[in-house]
């Protein structure tokens, strides 16, 4: 399986937001916990719509949550 080029800081941001659980985030953005698990492991790149919903859930711009390639400058 080719490595996904879209990375994220979802796990770190969850902990920084009152230690939000994967299930709580999943409920907020309208997906299953499995999808949040896959996102955090880097096994799945979300759709644009889901990326926007996640950014709204954290109250942060998309660029502070997701990055492309090896750019982890957040």
């Amino acid at each position, binding site marked *: 399986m080719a490595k*996904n080029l879209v990375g994220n800081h979802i796990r770190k941001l969850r902990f920084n937001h009152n230690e939000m659980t994967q299930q709580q985030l999943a409920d907020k953005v309208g997906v299953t*916990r*499995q999808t949040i698990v*896959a996102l955090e492991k880097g096994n799945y790149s979300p*759709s644009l719509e889901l990326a926007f919903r996640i950014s709204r859930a954290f109250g942060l711009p998309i660029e502070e949550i997701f990055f492309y390639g090896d750019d982890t400058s957040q």
Partner: protein
Amino acid sequence: MTYQEKKSITTLISAVLIFAVYCLYKYAQYPEEGMALEESIRYWGSFVLVLTLVSIVAHIVINIIFNIIFRITTGEKEPAFADELDKLIELKANRNSFFLFILGFLLAMVSLATDRPLNLMFLILIASGFLSDVTGSITKLYHYRKGV
């Protein structure tokens, strides 16, 4: 292991078991050599129809039992909907499943075109149906574990 992974494994095992048990049951009723063509066709037609019915009922029952056991052992509820990842994996599984079935179908047609016994065509079609079902489950399990 998540719900979807466990469900994929359960579906895979149950598909194999249901098919194996049913084949063993029907083997006893296999038409003898020299049976009339109509008799042979009727046998295979009933084989497929009854297998379809039995598979649907068995999968529903197994699914219900699986969900009950899952709730009891994990305390979690099964997902109430299919999100984008579920739909994407479903599409990939269906694609692989259909591809394999088409391959089997073409092989069955080759057997007809090369004057092989009619029974062989039915065997190939039924086997490819089973293998396509298994392939779909394996594809789902693979993507739920490794990602998309």
